[in-house]
């Protein structure tokens, strides 16, 4: 256990990873861009260890990321998620499921120079690369266009042409809880570029 990241490192890693995740995920969501890259199902290592994302949306278990995307598309255009608050905790300082052999601590023994507990794997663990993270997000979903103002290329007044009540967007609050785990394919020496370092294994969404 000596090699675990310090509490401070764990907290910092969790906060930074959450910040990055929240910023990118909800932007993709709002632009209705593909979401597959954010989920554990993108990782063969995790998948082969039977780690798959558990997605629960408004109380309904959604089978896969693409099924969730379908659900999102079913909402129609002009749905916007706005984050008002988020918080994150480190959960497991050294998550192990799906860890490939070359990233196991034992791999350090085969490397020159380091030896067990001193090699690259040990450093990576110490740096918090393998922290799993819980995130809770709180915000607003807006269904409909932000304003009912007339097309902006007209010269009509700010008084607007439509009455405020009808066509006004509906806003509801939402809470979304996440569990993120290390994306093994993004770790290690020969990692492909552009992969997210953490991926989703649990998602709980509720609008209210």
């Amino acid at each position, binding site marked *: 256990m000596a090699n675990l990241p310090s509490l401070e490192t764990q907290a910092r890693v969790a906060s930074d990873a*959450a910040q990055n995740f929240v910023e990118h995920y909800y932007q993709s969501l709002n632009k209705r861009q593909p979401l597959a890259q954010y989920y554990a199902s993108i990782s063969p290592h995790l998948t082969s260890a039977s780690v798959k994302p558990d997605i*629960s949306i*408004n109380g309904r*278990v959604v089978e896969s990321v693409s099924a969730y995307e379908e659900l999102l598309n079913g909402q129609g255009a002009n749905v916007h998620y706005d984050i008002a608050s988020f918080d994150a*905790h480190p959960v*497991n300082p050294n998550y192990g499921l799906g860890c490939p052999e070359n990233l196991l601590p034992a791999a350090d023994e085969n490397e020159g120079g380091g030896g067990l507990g001193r090699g690259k794997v040990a450093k990576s663990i110490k740096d918090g690369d393998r922290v799993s993270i819980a995130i809770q997000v709180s915000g*607003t979903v807006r269904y409909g266009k932000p304003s009912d103002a*007339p097309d902006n290329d007209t010269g009509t007044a700010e008084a607007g042409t439509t009455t405020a009540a009808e066509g006004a967007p509906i806003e509801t609050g939402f809470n979304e809880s996440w569990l993120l785990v290390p994306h093994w394919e993004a770790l290690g020496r020969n990692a492909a570029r552009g992969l997210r370092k953490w991926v989703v294994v649990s998602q709980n969404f509720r609008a209210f």
Partner: protein
Amino acid sequence: MAPMGPKKGSARNTQSNTGKTSSRGGISKRRGAGPLRVDRDGDLNMDVSTTSASRSDSKRLKNNSTPSGTVTRTSSRNPRPTAKAQQIIQRVINGDTSQISSRRVGRRADTEPLVALKVEGLKASKAASNQGGGVKELLTFIERKAKSTGQITRPIKIRKSQRSGDFVYITASKEDAQEILKVNGFTFAGASLHIIEAPEGFPNRDSTPLSSTALEIKEQLRSVLSTRYDVNTKLLNLSSLGEDPQLNQMGFFRGESSPEKMFRALMAVCDGLFKTPQAKRDAIVSISLAGNNVNDVLQVMSLTETFPDVVNLDLSRNQFGDLKALQKWRHRLRNLQTLLLNENPIEVANPNYKAEMVTWFPKLLNLSGTQVRTPEQIAAAEAAARPTPIPQSGPDFRDINRIGEGFITEFLALYDTDRHNLAAKYYDEHSTFSIAVNTHSPHAPDVPVPTWGAYIRFSRNHMKINHSSPRQQRLLTGLNQIQHVWRQLPPTQHPNLTTQLDKYLVDCHPIHGLADPAGRNPLGVDGMIITIHGEFDDQEPGTAKTAKRSFSRTFVLGPGAPDRNPIRVVSDLLSVKAFKHLPTQTTINDQQKQQMLSELSRLTGMTPEFSRLCLEGANWHFNQALASFHEKKAQIPPEAFTTV
């Protein structure tokens, strides 16, 4: 409009004329007719002899540039009455600056801030003895030099100019003004130019209220309007204005004066009659412009500015020849339901115009007497465009051996009564807790926004707490820290989970790969994640003030360490926000529905059928149904109510 010229000449684009010498031609032409002033659009300036015309406001300056400069160019023949009439109309138009400018904000030229500059040196130059006093030459010179000096490709445009004593005041866009200032020190016709910014704007020359004549004109226009307004049908009948005896008597259709200006003045007077857009909408539903010889909507553009919400519009018996002539209204009149274009050349010239125009106005039902849509189609189109939220389902509670249920039930009760021992039982030295305040959550309008004083100092909301050190400090790790903060958080009262389950939404499911507290399994152990949404009442320790709040809380639960409680809290994330009712799940049994039905019928007096409609519309959320009943009460047909 009655004596309307051909489209090209009369519908001159206000924005394309500046900077062209032709537009300044009016200056020299009118010079012989007395000391009349023209601005750079060729329009007459508002006043000559009196000392004030409040011209400091750049928006007001722009309002003077009406799209009818060509008309004034011929005015040397008979300048006096025309000039006077135009001044008056312009004053009418300018009389209420705030309204005019607010109506015109959409125009780019209006919104662009103009910079006033002061040019000195004309008087000393040889050009001063030119016909026209050399202003025209000076402006051309400045524009040309500013362009070449700055080595820029776009034309530099002086928007307005006014000679005042030794100075010539000009306005230009901010960008252009930068370039023009570089001409400072240039020699113009033998004299050195001195150009500085004039933040005070043009010298004031008229701040007096409307003259008695102007008031009279305004009054006359008002009386014209009153004879043309039918209060019962809410129709403003502006048809065949050219034949209106009163307007003719006022000289609007004689030669030089512009019917367009008259129309703008009419609209301006209309505008002044209503205090709010709503009052306007209520009073005027239909407008007729039939038989006015209009061949392009540009000529009556102000109609859509004054009455953007008009529902029925009669444009029949005019000269609209093609879609282009109507193009400028394409994105306006969003509420138009009836549009009559009968007896216009377009009917022959472009028999397919209807198909196109239907797409322009989303609510159009009747085009030239033909039904083009049904209200149902419009409602359907609107409904289709509106997003539909992902439906709510009941709890997704995938518990393991009722561990989650046991934990959450015990947790809520003990959190209110005995936090210290609750923490001791479930939290250990590795457990983490933090609280995040969401001060921007949506809530019902009748709910007062609570204060967050007792919570905010612990809030770890990452949207607000951006730096790593306070983020570290507010993450509470280990039993002691957690107990310490829990003591400081206000005492709470949560509804009983068993008896008031409807006040909660709880989801949970198994998770894997948690750290093994026994340290045996490197792959970790299984646990579960619980999210609970609900409400609590709290009491601020200092002030004893009570408040109801909503919360969401996420627990990561795992097996406890050996010799400790079998369940431990790995992570506890609490989010607090303003109170808002949770949605009712769609899985309501028939008995509950029946209860809601009879209760709603009892409260509203509606028949069971309509109560059902209402509840279904609100997704069986009783309070929402009741609220929407009160909101739409007026529109509900009488048959919806049970007769007593």
